[in-house]
Every structure is written in C-alpha cells, then in structure tokens.
C-alpha cells in the first residue's frame, strides 16, 4: 500500500486569520491527502513537535501577520535540531518577494501568495512526493 501524503497545516503566532488555512486544509483533503490541523496560535516549538509525532511529509505555514521572517526560520531551525530537517517546509500568506527569496535560500519550499488556487498547492506537493498518494 502506497503511503498517504501527510501534511501538517500550521497557523503560527497570534495571527487569527484562519480562512486561508482552513480552505487549503479542505482542499488538500479533497485531493486525497491526510491533513493534520492543530488550530490557532501555535509556537514554532509546538509545530516542530507536532510534525515529528505525526511524522508528516511537509509542514504548511499560513502567515498573514508579517512575522514570517521570524516564525518560518525558527520552526525550520527547531526541526533540524530535532533531527527532522528533511521535513519539507512550505507556506502561504502575505510575503513580499524579497523575503521569499531569503526564505528560499534557507531551504524553505514554495511560498504561495494571495490568489493562489488550491490546485497549484496540490500539484506542488505531488511533484515533491511522487511516491505518495
């Protein structure tokens, strides 16, 4: 049995805008993935721990608060520290181009902006994990 793609959809920080993360979570479920949703107000430590316990393939961060340059690198650092640096980080929200470039340099996966269709996120994940269903 081929392994199902497991994705953690995380909402870090105090930002309460969860319309996007919930729409994407549903979209990924409808694409056949198993999505772990942990609710609002997660710290990087909580996200990294959850990713490990749930053995996810990727972590999707939804950030609209402008705190991406703090929260994404910190979560990536913690994953690495816990021996889970191979878990793919990706995200979405309001992230200016120059910040995106910097995050890509750190090894972050794709960051999706406003107007993204769910299909694009599904395609991105399928391409990254061709052996999963």
């Amino acid at each position, binding site marked *: 049995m081929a392994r199902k793609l497991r994705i953690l959809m995380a909402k870090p920080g105090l930002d309460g805008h969860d319309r996007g993360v919930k729409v994407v979570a549903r979209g990924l479920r409808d694409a056949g993935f198993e999505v*772990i949703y942990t609710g609002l107000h997660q710290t990087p430590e*909580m996200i990294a721990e959850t990713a490990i316990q749930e053995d996810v393939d990727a972590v999707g961060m939804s950030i609209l608060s402008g705190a991406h340059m703090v929260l994404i690198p910190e979560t990536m650092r913690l994953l690495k520290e816990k021996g889970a640096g191979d878990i793919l980080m990706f995200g979405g929200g309001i992230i200016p181009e120059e910040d995106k470039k910097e995050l890509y340099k750190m090894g972050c996966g794709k960051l999706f902006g406003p107007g993204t269709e769910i299909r694009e996120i599904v395609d991105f994940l399928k391409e990254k994990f061709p052996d999963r269903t």
Partner: protein
Amino acid sequence: MLESTTSRLLEEFRSGDRRACGRLVSVVENEGRGAAEVLSELYPLTGRAFRVGITGPPGVGKSTLVEKLARLCRDQDRSVGIVAVDPTSPFSGGAILGDRVRMPSLFTDPGVFIRSMASRGGLGGLAMRTREACDVLDAFGYDFIIIETVGVGQIELDIASTAHSTVVVLVPESGDAIQMMKAGLMEIGELFCVNKSDRQGADRLALAIESMLGLRSSQDGWKPPVVKTVGTSGEGVDALLAALERHRSYLVESDLMSARRKFRVRVEIKELVEEKLKQKIWSRPEVDARLAGLVDEVMSESSTPYRAAAALLEFIRADSREEV
C-alpha cells in the same frame, strides 16, 4: 530480514528517539515492507501500558476529556501516548485530522506523544492499524495510552478488543437510554462518563444509564461505574481516572487481564493469518481472471453469486495444490 533503514530506525527507537517513534508508527500504519517484522521486533517490549479507549457520539467533548485525563496522568508523573482517530473521506480518501485542536497544552510536553490517524476504512471508530500504533507507543515506553475513536453514532466492538478499559462518553443532550442501547453503546462500556455535566439533565442521564446497566447481562462481574465530568473545567476527571484504575486492578486481580490478553493474541493471530490468506489469494492473476469469468456468468444469468463463489473456491483449492 530487516532492511537497513528499518533496523536503524529500530535502533534509534530503542534509544528513545521520538522521531523514530513517529516513523515507526507510519511503518505499521502503512503496512509497508517490514511492518510485520517491526511489530515482531517490538512485541517483547509491549504489554506494559494501560490502554484506555474513549468513545462516544460526535460532539460529546472526547478530545477535551482526553486532554484533561492526560494532564492528570502527567501530574502523577506518568507518560502518555494518545492515538486520535478521525474519519477518512469516502470520496477523496483524504482526511482532516483535527483532534489536536483541543490538546495544545500537551504539544511540547516531552512525556506526551500524540498521533492522529485517519480511519482509512477501519470500522467501529478506529483506524485500520490503531492497535499496531498503540503497540509502537507501548513499546516506546508510554505508561498510559489513550485511544480516542471517531465520533460515530454506532459503535462496534473493535475498541473493546483494542483497549483494556473502554469509556463511553455521553452528554445530557445525547438522547434517551433506549437509543443508546440500540447503538450498542451500553454493551461495550466498562465505564460511563456523563460529560458536560454542568448542563441540565446530567443527573437524569446518569440515573438512566445506571438503570440500563442493571439490565445488562454481566459476564465478568464488573459493574460499570458512571462518572460525571465537565471536560472544559476538568471537574470529575480525577474521579474518572480513579475509576479507570479500579477497573485495571479488577482486571488484574480477577485474572481477566491475562484472559483478555490471551483472547487478543488469539484474535490477532487469526487476523494476521486471514490477511495473509486474502493477500495470497487476490494477488494471483489467474484467480483474478477466473473471478472475471465468473462475474460475467452471473451477469448473463447463467450462474448465481453463490454458485460462482463455490466454483472459485474449488478453483483456488485446486490451484493451491498444484503450487504446493
């Protein structure tokens, strides 16, 4: 033979690496290559944890209760493993696993490990490999394992064979006792929990459950207690844990623990054999071809499903003999 990556994982697992624990749960969940070997390797380490099932209809506050129960165990310095099951969408095969939303206080506690599982066609509110996932957590050394089932109206017996103690959670709005009995809930509970008991009707429900239990045929001499809780505030959760402990002692003292274990092992072996047989039969192309032919016969009304099944069994038997 174990693959090298799997044996390395096992090694890390034994040294207490949480990442390895998470990955081994995936291995057994996905029934990937090596799953049986992994479980076999881990088997000697299992059997120490107390496994508690929490079940009940949707919306009764199971996750909140699990969180509070886990917190209480942590206060007593016991480590906790949680397996939370959510339904797989029958349309897409995907799932949203959202039980964690109610348990944020446990996320960064090193003495807690939470694993969400999609039911993937499992019955009775469990996932296909819930028991195996519990085995992994048990082997990792968690003292207290809580299994939270899918919130289904209809409970089957699977949870009872997976956990040592099964708690059926209800709320004052759950409906009348007759409905609950119809749903099979009264049969499987070793403990009953009236959650959200600060609401009207809690006492009435507790009384109704107790009188229903009076009618239940008691096979093992245990009289299920009814505990009232308020999950959001934690009220009554200590009484619930104490009742669970009493049940555990009862199981040990009455020798039911080992009797049940024996029963479980028996079921497990049978299931493993059945699975292997199934796999063996249906993976053979000639069986598949014969089946297709038989389906056509039924469709053209020259046979019936019953005759077709008999014919296929005969075919398989003959075919197997040749193979041997």
